[in-house]
């Protein structure tokens, strides 16, 4: 077919949107059958589709929607009560309409399908109306009726019922009240989430029912529909601009023309702001994906005779559209899995002393520049022993290996291909898309997935995903004279090994080099070797190691030089290069040259460092495990003086550095070092706690320091030794001392003081305090 009529196209787009909303509204209606307001809205949607059909000449679709409309009008007028059967029929209606719309979209005409059975069903449900209406007052499956919202609804329905008589008449010529486009979707689900988390924000729809019901009020005039392709293009252009900006900045750094430098700064600011704004236009609330899930849960639970309530928290959390698209299927799969394998049947649940109705909680929130999604159920969790047995019998692991496995490793087995933990294969799970696909799809967009298992009590899947894919922070390194960018998501830390330290830290196991990092052995991979590039460094040079993480496993990547971090714009590689697994794309650097972006997972696979055995040494304080408690924080552990073990929130530390004493200079009474075009004062942290500083040790070559930004300046806080980075819940004990120590906690089974880096800096350097006050 040729060009589709614009009118039809518009009709399709609007109808699809309305249908998506209908799905959630119908489910809402089932739990809260009294909400007449909802019924009116559903009625209006079906009515306007019907109206448009008549106008566009889709007679079959018109007749189908007509059947639905008749039933809905009885419901709306209160002549019939909503029950499970009616909801099912209405959901089927939605599916049938959607199917017809798809046919229209592909063929330009409605298909031959008449949906006679469905029409008859809708009709017979109406027939039961007059007699059965009183007999079926409320839906049997309806959970607790809304409490907080009820009074508001009562008054709301008064208002709306007065309007509904007018609204449908206006509807055909103006099919969709714009107020009900996706932007308003989160509102529609408010009741569900409100019963879960006492959300403080009052729902605008409930607060102003009249405004919401009036078609085209406010929102319509303030928003326009934009083609996603247009936004993609805009984003690409901004990407170009960011690159051009980087180049100009580089030029300006060599320029002595003040006007030029000032203009460049302004360009810099504007570009950053523009980049953020454009990125915002591509952001959509996670609700756009979540809104489909209650329907999935309902279908699955009805089919399996289970009762499952869906709770949502943080549905307004926004993500880039591309990412939303990418997580849609994995999320659906996980939710389906939880309903099928996780949550037990009401009988089993009662036996286990849990409420008969299971709860599936979806949570979304921001953390450290990433978005965390959690899918939690209060079902049976994973039976580790059964998973192990299954994995052994499927030949995934050996018996001996299974015995040595930690619980976390065993949980990870569910992501292995060819392992289904369902005791019985149902038509809901085990349909070919396994958890292995879920995992790889999430990793494809730079995300990570983790499991927290509470056997017999539930399961939490935690997905960490980046906010956007187009522009990412990356570390630039060189190998064989070429530059490569490493996405910062995979980056754990940077290590520089010189002379003695190098010899001590590097070992070899069966010929393969390993690096001993705080008691843990990490395989070492030399980037030049993996890429077949010439090695320029000599054996006795300092070794630059980038510690990376892929699939929960760490390894050290030896590079020639570590340059800097930079915001890069990811560009895909042409088809000739797609088959090289070690590259994720390419980017243009500040000097205008192209650099390749490393695919850390691909690189690890190529170098065979992921292996299939467990990591040689996994410590308990490791940050990779999932903690249900979101108060867990990432802490930097370090030693001060001979005996003090201290920690600081990792976000307070800008960088970790090692300075050679010979590079230090003196300014006033301070030792300083030239560092990235600024003069960085070195403050001996030990002195604040009455200990001798490593700065004063006579035969020392270098010192380790935490670089922190206080006020507008950076300071290097010299410590004896950087120990580790851990993620853990903070339970502080003890009194704060002099404001320098915020408290004391036990970390990695040792007593550790939590240091306030800013306070210590001000204590050691009074000028810092002045900066802060200024």
């Amino acid at each position, binding site marked *: 077919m040729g060009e589709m009529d614009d009118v039809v196209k518009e009709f399709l787009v609007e109808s699809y949107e309305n249908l998506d909303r209908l799905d959630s509204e119908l489910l809402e209606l089932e739990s809260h059958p009294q909400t007449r307001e909802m019924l009116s809205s559903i009625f209006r949607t079906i009515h306007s589709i019907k109206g448009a059909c008549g106008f566009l000449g889709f007679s079959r679709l018109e007749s189908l929607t007509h059947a639905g409309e008749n039933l809905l009008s009885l419901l709306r007028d209160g002549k019939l009560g909503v029950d499970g059967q009616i909801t099912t029929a209405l959901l089927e209606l939605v599916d049938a309409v959607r199917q017809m719309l798809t046919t229209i979209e592909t063929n330009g005409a409605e298909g031959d399908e008449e949906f006679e059975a469905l029409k008859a069903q809708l009709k017979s449900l109406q027939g039961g109306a007059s007699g059965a209406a009183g007999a079926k007052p409320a839906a049997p499956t309806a959970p607790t009726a809304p409490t907080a919202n009820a009074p508001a609804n009562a008054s709301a329905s008064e208002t709306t019922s007065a309007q509904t008589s007018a609204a449908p008449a206006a509807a055909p010529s103006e099919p969709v009240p714009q107020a009900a486009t996706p932007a308003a979707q989160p509102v529609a689900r408010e009741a569900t989430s409100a019963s879960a988390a006492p959300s403080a924000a009052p729902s605008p729809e409930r607060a102003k029912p009249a405004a919401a019901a009036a078609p085209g009020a406010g929102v319509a005039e303030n928003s326009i529909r934009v083609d996603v392709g247009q936004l993609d293009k805009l984003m690409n252009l901004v990407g*170009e601009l960011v*690159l*051009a900006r980087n180049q100009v900045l580089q030029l300006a750094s060599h320029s002595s023309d003040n006007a030029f430098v000032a203009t460049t700064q302004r360009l810099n600011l504007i570009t950053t702001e523009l980049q953020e704004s454009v990125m915002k236009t591509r952001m959509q609330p996670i609700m756009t994906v979540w809104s489909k899930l209650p329907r999935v849960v309902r279908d699955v639970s009805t089919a399996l005779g289970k009762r499952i309530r869906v709770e949502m928290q943080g549905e307004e959390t926004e993500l880039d559209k591309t990412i939303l698209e990418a997580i849609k299927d994995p999320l659906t799969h996980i939710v389906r899995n939880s309903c099928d394998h996780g949550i037990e049947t009401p009988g089993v649940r009662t036996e286990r002393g849990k409420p008969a109705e299971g709860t599936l909680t979806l949570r979304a929130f921001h953390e450290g520049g990433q978005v965390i999604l959690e899918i939690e159920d209060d079902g049976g969790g994973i039976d580790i022993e059964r998973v192990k047995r299954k994995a052994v019998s499927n030949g995934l692991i050996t018996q001996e290996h299974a015995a040595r496995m930690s619980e976390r490793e065993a949980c990870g087995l569910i992501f292995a291909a060819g392992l289904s933990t369902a005791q019985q294969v149902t038509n809901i799970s085990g349909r070919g898309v396994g958890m292995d696909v879920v995992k790889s799809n999430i990793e494809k967009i730079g995300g990570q997935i983790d499991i927290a298992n509470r056997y017999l009590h539930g399961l939490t899947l935690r997905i960490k995903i980046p906010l956007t894919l187009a522009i990412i922070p990356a570390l630039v390194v060189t190998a*064989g004279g*070429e530059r490569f960018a490493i996405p910062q998501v995979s980056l754990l830390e940077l290590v520089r090994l010189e002379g003695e330290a190098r010899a001590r830290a590097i070992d070899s196991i069966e010929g393969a080099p390993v690096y001993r990092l705080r008691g843990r052995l990490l395989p070492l991979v030399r980037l030049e070797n993996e*890429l*077949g*590039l010439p090695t320029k460094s000599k054996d006795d040079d300092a070794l630059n190691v980038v510690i990376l993480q892929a699939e929960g496993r760490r390894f050290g990547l030896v590079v020639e030089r570590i340059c800097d971090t930079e915001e890069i714009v990811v*560009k895909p*590689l*042409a*088809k*000739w*290069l797609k*088959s*090289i697994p*070690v*590259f994720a794309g*390419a*980017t*243009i650097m500040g000097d*205008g*040259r*192209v*650099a*390749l972006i490393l695919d850390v997972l691909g690189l690890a696979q190529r170098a065979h460092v992921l292996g299939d055995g467990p990591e040689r040494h996994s410590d308990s304080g490791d940050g990779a495990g999932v903690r249900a408690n979101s108060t867990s924080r990432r802490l930097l552990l370090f030693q001060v003086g001979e005996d003090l073990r201290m920690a600081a929130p990792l976000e307070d530390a800008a960088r970790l550095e090692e300075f050679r004493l010979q590079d230090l200079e003196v300014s006033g009474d301070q030792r300083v070092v030239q560092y990235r075009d600024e003069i960085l004062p070195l403050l001996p942290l030990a002195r604040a706690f009455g200990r001798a500083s490593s700065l004063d040790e006579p035969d020392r070559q270098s010192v380790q320091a935490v670089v922190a930004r206080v006020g507008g300046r950076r300071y290097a806080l010299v410590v004896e030794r950087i120990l580790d980075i851990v993620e853990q819940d903070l339970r502080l004990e003890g009194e704060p001392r002099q404001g320098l120590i915020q408290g004391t906690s036990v970390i990695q089974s040792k007593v550790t003081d939590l240091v306030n880096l800013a306070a210590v800096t001000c204590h050691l350097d009074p000028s810092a305090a002045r900066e802060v006050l200024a």
Partner: protein
Amino acid sequence: MSATQATAAKVEQFCTFYLDKSLFGVEVGRVQEVIRSQEMTAVPLAPSVVRGLINLRGQIVTALDLRRRLGRPDATDGRAPMNVVVRCDEGAVSLLVDEIGDVLEVDAASLEAPPDTLVGRSRELIRGVVQREKGLLLVLDITKTLETTE
């Protein structure tokens, strides 16, 4: 093209270039631009025909070594190759050639099948030849040329 339409002198324009002393041509419509040798970033592990990536006004363009693609020996004179940037479905691709020639107008009717003496990979990628006073013009089948080999 149906033969009847070609009765009037239907003229095709070719952007020409030299490669290993042979004259090649690509339809003008497929050529986006011709640029001087660019700074190039090599791609480790890439097939040998990919010489690297260049930055063409913010667009990353893959540069293909046309000598290697056609199975000709690498150039030995050390001269920097020229870029013939052609459009393809996934953006632009640069073909590295020895030297740029003129744009030639050729009567479509004079396009002949490649001679039997042309063997190997060249033959697959040559759409036809045009006899000229100064020798042959080999017309590249650009779509086939841009297909991935490995």
